[in-house]
């Protein structure tokens, strides 16, 4: 064990410590009150987030299986932030729930899997991290045990993720057969433009594309998002997507550089299909969670398009976009989770005249949707701009134009919700919803994040400096 083991592995150790702490509380006969427990957990998650900013070092662990550097630490900080915000937003829902501790154990073990996946420098570590990040989420998706749709969503998630991981494993087994090693850098040296190598890589890559729900592997997304509780839906759409995207970037940059010509073409077509089909399906959705599912599919398409450029700038722009995506998606989900916990309303038509009684929530929803659509003063505009600028290095202008036109289409369905919320209608209108302190803090962090990350250019140059 190297001397700086506890520094290199600290973010994972923090999570393990919190998980054990929660399990010990669960074992005790005398349970603390619900609010005390939630307070303690949120403080622990905040400490976890803060600890990621100090004493960071670069290094390798476990026989070069686990690599950490400042960029990975930053990516993990983004995920920690997402977990903290989701935890703050779901307090109101959790207060009426019996199994608070189980919820957090599942969520944090999934987060631990994502951390291992990001830091992986070995196919075995990548596979273990991937499974650790999906299996607890499938259990968590079934958290509303008595609801029929919850069970259905969880079943679809576990079957499709198990199927995708078998394809991924078949790819890994052939990569192992071709090269005789599982280490990313050694594989990178040994791969060639040969049919078997390309087939093995494509099988492996399909497994990863399943996790980010790129078209044609997106069919599980909408059903799972609609069936799960809102807290899990937001975790799936933010943290799980982001972690899988980080892993894809890592694999493309470290492991399969010799096959660049192949995956460049594959990524462009997959990204175009993802953007177009995600947008077209999003137009006709009535349920807000389903709408956000398809919107996240199309956002992933933009990230994949930038990933095809294979440069330091494109990687930085993707990570920057994910940071913005965390803020804007969680601003929207924060409002939805409050409304869903208070009134069980989730369709767009039920949000008619939402503004009359809920001014603050309406503005949060509006800013979040503006950022997702890419309207200039918000950060989403700069995120999309940098993505398309970096993607433009490797693709023709026809493809770039199609992607840009799709931003216009996406404007329609995002702003339709905003219009419904602000449209004046005297008769109907949702009653006033009380906003607990935690939810208010989380929403304010998201809104400030959306407004500042775009205007202050520091975030983007910071990410570039990390590489």
């Amino acid at each position, binding site marked *: 064990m190297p001397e700086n083991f506890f520094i290199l592995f600290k973010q994972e150790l923090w999570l393990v410590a919190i998980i054990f702490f929660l399990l010990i509380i669960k074992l005790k006969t005398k349970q603390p009150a619900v609010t005390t427990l939630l307070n303690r957990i949120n403080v622990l998650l905040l400490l976890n987030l803060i600890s990621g900013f100090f004493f960071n070092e670069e290094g390798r662990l476990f026989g070069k299986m686990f690599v950490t550097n400042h960029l990975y630490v930053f990516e993990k900080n983004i995920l920690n932030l997402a977990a903290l915000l989701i935890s703050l937003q779901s307090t109101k829902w959790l207060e009426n729930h019996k199994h608070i501790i189980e919820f957090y154990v599942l969520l944090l073990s999934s987060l631990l899997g994502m951390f291992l996946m990001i830091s992986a420098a070995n196919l075995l570590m990548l*596979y273990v991290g991937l499974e650790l990040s999906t299996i607890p989420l*499938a259990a968590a998706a079934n958290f509303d045990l008595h609801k029929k749709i919850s069970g259905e969503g969880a079943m679809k998630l576990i*079957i499709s993720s198990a199927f995708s991981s078998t394809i991924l494993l*078949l790819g*890994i087994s052939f990569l192992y*057969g071709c090269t005789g090693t599982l280490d990313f850098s050694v594989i990178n040296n040994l791969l060639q433009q040969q049919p078997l190598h390309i087939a093995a890589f494509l099988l492996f890559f399909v497994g990863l594309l399943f996790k980010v729900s790129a078209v044609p592997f997106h069919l599980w997304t909408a059903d799972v998002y609609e069936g799960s509780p809102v807290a899990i839906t937001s975790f799936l759409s933010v943290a799980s997507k982001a972690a899988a995207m980080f892993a894809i970037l890592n694999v493309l940059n470290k492991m399969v550089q010799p096959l660049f010509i192949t995956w460049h073409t594959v990524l462009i077509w997959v990204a175009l299909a993802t953007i177009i089909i995600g947008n077209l399906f999003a137009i006709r959705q009535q349920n807000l969670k389903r709408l956000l599912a398809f919107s996240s599919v199309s956002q992933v398409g933009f990230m994949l398009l930038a990933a095809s450029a294979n440069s330091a700038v494109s990687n930085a722009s993707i990570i920057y976009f994910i940071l913005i995506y965390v803020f804007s998606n969680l601003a929207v989900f924060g409002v939805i989770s409050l409304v869903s916990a208070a009134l069980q309303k989730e369709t767009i038509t039920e949000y008619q005249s939402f503004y009359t009684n809920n001014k603050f929530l309406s503005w949060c929803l509006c800013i979040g949707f503006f950022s997702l659509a890419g309207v200039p003063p918000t950060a989403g505009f700069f995120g999309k701009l940098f993505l398309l600028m970096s993607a433009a290095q490797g693709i023709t202008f026809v493809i770039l134009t199609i992607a840009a036109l799709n931003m216009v289409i996406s404007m329609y369905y995002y702003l339709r919700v905003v219009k419904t919320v602000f449209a004046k209608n005297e008769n109907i209108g949702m009653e006033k919803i009380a906003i607990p302190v935690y939810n208010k803090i989380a929403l304010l962090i998201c809104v400030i994040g959306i407004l500042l990350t775009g205007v202050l250019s520091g975030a983007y140059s910071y990410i570039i400096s990390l590489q």
Partner: protein
Amino acid sequence: MIELLFHITAFKSLPLGEVGGALTHIIILSTALFFIGMYGLFTRRNMITMLMSIELMLNSVNINFVAFNKYLYPDKMDGIFFSIFIIAIAAAEAAVAIAIIINLYRTHKSIDVDDVTDLKQ
């Protein structure tokens, strides 16, 4: 016939050498097993059977790993360790999946996927 098939397909780029014959047969076995599993997953409507099909696919990958390790790279144990990890994770996955299926049976009184279609639009 099988040998001929493999000489004209992509597999000839594997570093086969003398052990080519035995390894070829094992790869054919595992590929067949994989696609039998995939066929089962797509045609069966019973969730337990679908889960069994996925186990079949995972086991075919295990065969691949062990065979590659034994015949091509016998000096290191990477493949065998990987297959042990796959077995362990498959067990965890099956545990969660069966828990979900039991809960589905409680709410829907059926484990047929055609009866579980509340989310279809």
